[in-house]
């Protein structure tokens, strides 16, 4: 199975700021990937590089096996929807869709029209008169109806309310089931999309810190809460990623699964075990105050 995207030791340097530092990963076909991380972690930078809209300082990039720069064969298979996309100010929604239709070989007009309906968009309205939410909806429609083999969404739901976001996930999943394609979703709303993801990539300060199957990641952290001395005893020698103390209690997040024996041990010590959501895990791994040393 050949990779859709292959990034090898990619770096992007601005003066003495390393926006990306020797990042390497690959994207396999027809899976939904999550590209997660805090603001400024490098997510948008790397997506722009993958789509040849920005140039890497060093490293290697292959999309569908070739370099994407000025490569129509490759570029026509990519659709990149970003929150910062600037539309020509004199364009109306229909104009954007018209242009997109003539650019994407697999464009589905019927799908685009039904989405216009779903998102309640006034087709003839000018782009500059749209609210932030409507603008995002336009981007989502282009991304979905393009049926591009590699579709990338960068924070596509700025301004969208929960109902519209849910609609997006629905349509995305439905379309993905019927017409599989490779999807990369980059977002802050980790919890909402975490169930949609098959594979997770996490960037922090320009480095790739997680590259895992979502399912594996979900089982990989637990929070232990209880009396401080008991917690210390239990977590001795284990990898701690986060610690909170309040009064006589300590809450500790551990990396690594817990065996059944460990679980009953915790129970006998009177400790509570709670699962850690993907969002909590990523937040804790990327927060400044995370203590990398074991207890």
């Amino acid at each position, binding site marked *: 199975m050949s990779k859709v995207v292959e990034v090898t030791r990619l770096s992007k340097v601005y003066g003495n700021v390393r926006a990306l530092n020797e990042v390497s990963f690959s994207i396999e076909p027809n*899976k*939904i990937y999550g590209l997660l991380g805090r603001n400024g972690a490098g997510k948008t930078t790397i997506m722009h590089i993958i789509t040849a809209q920005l140039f890497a300082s060093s490293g290697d990039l292959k999309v569908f096996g070739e370099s994407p720069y000025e490569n129509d064969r490759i570029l026509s298979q990519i659709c990149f929807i970003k929150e910062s996309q600037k539309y020509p100010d004199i364009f109306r929604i229909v104009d954007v869709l018209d242009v997109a239709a003539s650019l994407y070989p697999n464009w589905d007009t019927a799908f685009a029209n039904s989405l216009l309906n779903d998102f309640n968009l006034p087709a003839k309205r000018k782009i500059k008169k749209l609210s932030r939410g409507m603008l995002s909806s336009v981007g989502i429609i282009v991304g979905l109806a393009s049926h591009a083999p590699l579709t990338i969404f960068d924070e596509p739901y700025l301004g969208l309310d929960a109902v519209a976001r*849910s609609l997006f*996930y*629905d349509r995305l*999943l*439905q379309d*993905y*089931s*019927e017409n599989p394609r490779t999807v990369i979703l980059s977002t802050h709303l980790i919890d909402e999309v975490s*169930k*949609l*993801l*098959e594979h997770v990539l996490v960037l922090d300060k320009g480095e790739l810190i997680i590259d895992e199957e*979502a*399912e594996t990641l*979900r*089982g990989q952290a637990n929070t232990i809460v209880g009396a401080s001395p008991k917690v210390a005893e239990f977590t001795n020698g284990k990898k701690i990623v986060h610690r909170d103390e309040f009064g006589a209690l300590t809450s500790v997040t551990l990396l690594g699964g817990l065996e059944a024996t460990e679980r009953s041990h915790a129970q006998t010590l009177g400790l509570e075990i709670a*699962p*850690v*959501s993907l969002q909590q895990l990523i937040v804790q791994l990327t927060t400044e105050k995370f203590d990398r040393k074991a207890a």
Partner: protein
Amino acid sequence: MSLLIDDNSPIFVQIAERIENDIIEGVLPEETQVPSTNQFAVFYQINPATAAKGVNLLVDTGILYKKRGIGMFVAEGARAKLMEKRREQFFEQYIVTMLHEAEKLGITIEQLTQMIQKGVKV
């Protein structure tokens, strides 16, 4: 039972459990068709691959089987198998836990039996 998928166990396990519950409660009788993995995915807003993993788990344990070109069906004897499994789980989850708790609280076996009788009457 909540329709939401939570963080307490892997998603595919929760999907499998949901199907098992439906079989036990008779919502999915034997030899009937189970919704497709895509339908599960859209309904619970989860990744289709994850839904497929949950379904395949049940195929591996003989609860579901695949009819080529049509879909997944509940296997014969599935309900009986699941009831058996649930009985074992009942023992671990409730009985063993109850005994531990009883020991902690200093309740004897005789007192325990009395309590059970009391509960039956209520």
